[in-house]
């Protein structure tokens, strides 16, 4: 297998290798989100629930929930994370 980290010197440069292009993608996401937020003013909603009528509900819900999800999962790591060979050790201990 190829050696880790250092990529070959003469290797082709890819579009994403340039940090500037990564920034462009970030900005594209931000602009699309802003546009989608504004778009809420321009169509007729067919809500099942009251919350759906709030301006930009889906966007805000998605953002807050995802941040909550990741932070919640991070907290779970404190309790649940063990070494990669956690279960292998159990077998080394004895039985079988």
């Amino acid at each position, binding site marked *: 297998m190829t050696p880790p980290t250092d*990529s070959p010197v003469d290797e082709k440069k890819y579009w994403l290798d340039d940090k500037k292009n990564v920034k462009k993608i970030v900005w594209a996401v931000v602009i699309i*989100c802003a546009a989608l937020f504004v778009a809420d003013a321009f169509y007729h909603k067919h809500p099942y*629930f009251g919350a759906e009528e709030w301006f930009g509900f889906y*966007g805000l819900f*998605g953002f807050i929930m*995802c941040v909550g999800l*990741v932070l919640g*999962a991070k907290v779970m*790591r404190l309790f649940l994370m063990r070494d990669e060979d956690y279960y292998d050790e*159990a077998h080394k201990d004895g039985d079988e």
Partner: protein
Amino acid sequence: MVNPAYILILGALPIAFLGRPFRQAWLLAVPLVAFGMALGIDDGTYGQIQVFDYTLETLRMDGLARVFTFIFLIAAFLSNIYALHDDDPIQQVSGMIYAGSAVGAVLAGDLITLFVYWELTAISSVFLILARRTEQARRAAMRYLIIQVGSGVLLLAGALVHVAATDSIAFTHLGLESTAGKLIFLAFGIKCAFPLLHNWLQDAYPEATVGGTVMLSAFTTKLAVYSLARSYAGTEILITIGAIMTAFPIFYAVIENDLRRVLAYSLNNQLGFMVVGIGIGSELAINGTAAHAFTHILYKALLFMSMGAVLFRTGTCKGSELGGLYKTMPWTTGFCIVGAASISAFPLFSGFVSKSMILSALGHEGHWFVWAVLLFASAGVFHHSGIKIPYFAFFAHDSGLRPKEAPPSMLIAMGLTAFLCIGIGVYPAPLYAILPYAVDYHPYTTAHVINQLQLLMYSALAFTFLMLTKLYPPELKSTNLDTDWIYRRFLPCVIRCGGRVIVAIDQGARRGFLHLVSEIIRVVHRYSGIEGTFARTYPAGAMVFWAVGFLAIFLLMYLIG
């Protein structure tokens, strides 16, 4: 007419005897023939077999069975193409029998036939894990087998109780009222990976072979979804169970390092959507469940295929060791992104046209809390399957790995699957046409498209925000404890500690008993031993002396008296 299940199962047998080029052609031809056969089966019951007093219905075709039969056969065909590079007859034979028995179970019209195929899926599929040929895989395979066979035993017990109570073996609506209904519900629940019964899935699937995981992801759990839809449609508790299933595994998916295990968690989450649909039980909801099972099998297979290709080329599937693979595996990257977009339900991809049916059905019923949970889960799916999988495997930091692109057979399988994912998303009418009930549903309304895009893009924004602020938990080499801890650590420990207690009691009891015995021997020895009072020997003269002595006393007393 021939049962498509027989074609696959009997078609599996010659594989071991065929030479390589014939074998490969055979592997592709058999599912196609079976699919052709399935296309021609009209609604009705066929293939009755009389066993004692009961009539087994080995082939019952109706709307619900048709969708699942079709998608199972398509999945068998695609995964056979995918696995062509890996010329391992054990996998090929067991995979084909596995697919055949899943189809047989879907077509079963009675509980006995269902039970036979139910167990056959368990036994045949375990070889897809064993074929990895590592110690870790062997252990996972044994755990998997025990749980799967356990589910079968519950099903059999339920079926027997059901027969005793109703004298019917029909595989139809059962409900939760009777004991039999509860037992069978539990049997289905294990295979469907209900919360707390789920962990066999995340334990075993990532340990299977590259092609084996793709097959496993398609059949077992969706067979359980089908069975639940057949027997427990409209059972209220399924809405709660399903909602927990959608939300609970995604937390694990965020922190899991093995990317195939991340996919196993997200598989669990997708099953939750289907289970909610079954719990609602309306025509729209059951249609949604069937449609979602159909699209889900395809995009989940596609995601497992792309991660399988990564595993095949780099030897690892761990997020902490991957990154930057898009440079040398552009096609795999592209196909993975199609799968990711489909599971995330982006408009124009397959998940969008199926998942929305379930959410709409939920809206009609007015379950606002469950609806909010499912919406959260939808955003979460995009977060961990839609972004995390492609991001950490193909982009993120450059791992320096420069593997070759996936082999042609894998690329063809991924290409076909990706084509179906997009095709269904763009033009869902053919899928809607084969659903169990007539469909009057339009996924592409302005509000729906915009709302879905808002949900997804803001999730992407959240991911970007968390990455830039370095709040996102890094991929770490780790094991996260899940319910399998109970039977991999806790119970063995209890047994070992319990064993120690039993050993102590046993040793104490033996020691006490030995002591008692030796004490008895000692006492007996004292009185009856060679020197003991009772065993002492006396010379014959002493006897005569005493006899004469007694006689003399007697005489004396006689004289005196």
